[in-house]
């Protein structure tokens, strides 16, 4: 147990272990529930970009797409709630979580759905101001771990818990800056992996290769780590978010777990056990 319970480095260290223990099968559950939501977001943004100035004339079509995005968000919320519970069970037991991770308490699930919808609506209201993405990144992830600290459904309590967790400025700013750096790295890696796939598939040939080559072309021949096609950039962003998300949620779960240890005094008991070498 680290002396400094809320050091971002300590949290990230424990996150690695938590993700390793919960990866099978809970990472699969998270991705199965989140991929449709991310793809729907990509399709929605692509449609807006494709329609251009004519977008307001197709508001009915866009609203139905936005409704699909919101409906798939509910599935994503379930996947995230299960994953966060699996991470917490793994942290508490020191081994992998069993099927009990699926049994998310109803109050936690309802509070997670409510919190996620609040964040999504706030994002929808402020996305045109550009500042909403970094500002809402923390509360959007904290929704699921804050729900763990609630015992019953409520309109204010889940939001208060998010605020309380965000008050740990050092841990939160450390985690946010780490994942802000990880995001472009994951983006570039995802794009390069797609290009490597294209290169490997090019040996097979076929008529569709020209289309894939066009879709995955770089922004500039001398700068081959960024995609030139907007759709590819959107898919790479979604891919990077999918890669980052399990680590982000696990890091926040570790943070909440450590907050609980501090409140219960268990951290001192564990530290004492380490110091005395007791088993």
């Amino acid at each position: 147990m680290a002396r400094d319970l809320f050091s971002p480095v300590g949290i990230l260290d424990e996150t690695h272990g938590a993700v390793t223990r919960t990866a099978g099968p809970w990472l699969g559950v998270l991705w199965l529930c989140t991929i449709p939501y991310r793809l729907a977001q990509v399709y929605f943004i692509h449609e807006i970009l494709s329609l251009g100035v004519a977008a307001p004339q197709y508001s009915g079509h866009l609203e139905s797409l936005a409704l699909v995005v919101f409906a798939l968000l509910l599935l994503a919320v379930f996947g995230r709630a299960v994953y966060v519970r699996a991470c917490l069970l793994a942290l508490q037991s020191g081994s992998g979580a069993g099927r009990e991770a699926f049994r998310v308490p109803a109050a936690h699930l309802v509070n997670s759905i409510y919190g996620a919808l609040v964040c999504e609506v706030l994002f929808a209201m402020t996305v045109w101001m550009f500042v909403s993405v970094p500002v809402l990144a923390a509360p959007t992830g904290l929704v699921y771990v804050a729900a763990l600290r609630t015992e019953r459904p409520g309109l204010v309590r889940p939001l208060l818990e998010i605020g309380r967790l965000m008050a740990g400025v050092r841990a939160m700013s450390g985690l946010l800056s780490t994942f802000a750096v990880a995001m472009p790295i994951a983006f570039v890696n995802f794009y390069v992996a797609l290009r490597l796939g294209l290169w490997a598939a090019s040996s097979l040939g076929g008529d569709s290769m020209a289309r894939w080559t066009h879709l995955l072309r770089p922004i500039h021949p001398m700068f081959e780590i960024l995609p030139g096609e907007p759709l590819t950039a959107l898919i790479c962003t979604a891919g990077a978010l999918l890669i980052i998300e399990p680590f982000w949620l696990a890091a926040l779960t570790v943070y909440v777990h450590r907050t609980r240890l501090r409140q219960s005094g268990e951290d001192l008991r564990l530290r004492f056990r380490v110091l005395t070498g007791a088993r």
Partner: protein
Amino acid sequence: MVLQRSNCYNHPDRYGHATCMTCKKTVCQECATEWDGINYCSPCLANRRKTSGTRSPVMGYILVLLAAAGLFAIGPKLLVWSATLLQRSFE
């Protein structure tokens, strides 16, 4: 600085094991009960159970689900409005 060893509030002859997170009293292993990762003494735990048992969560579920339904209804419209506004700023 000398660390003082605290004894149990209910059993002065026993060493303290935990601090109740509600009344902040030091209690021994027998008097402490851990609930949801947090230590409580017996009276505080009884109070907590009594208050959590008397209030029905049904109203809370109804309120939260109604709020979620409202957000679900206005969310898509807001998203389209905002995205169109953003798209216009790029034009």
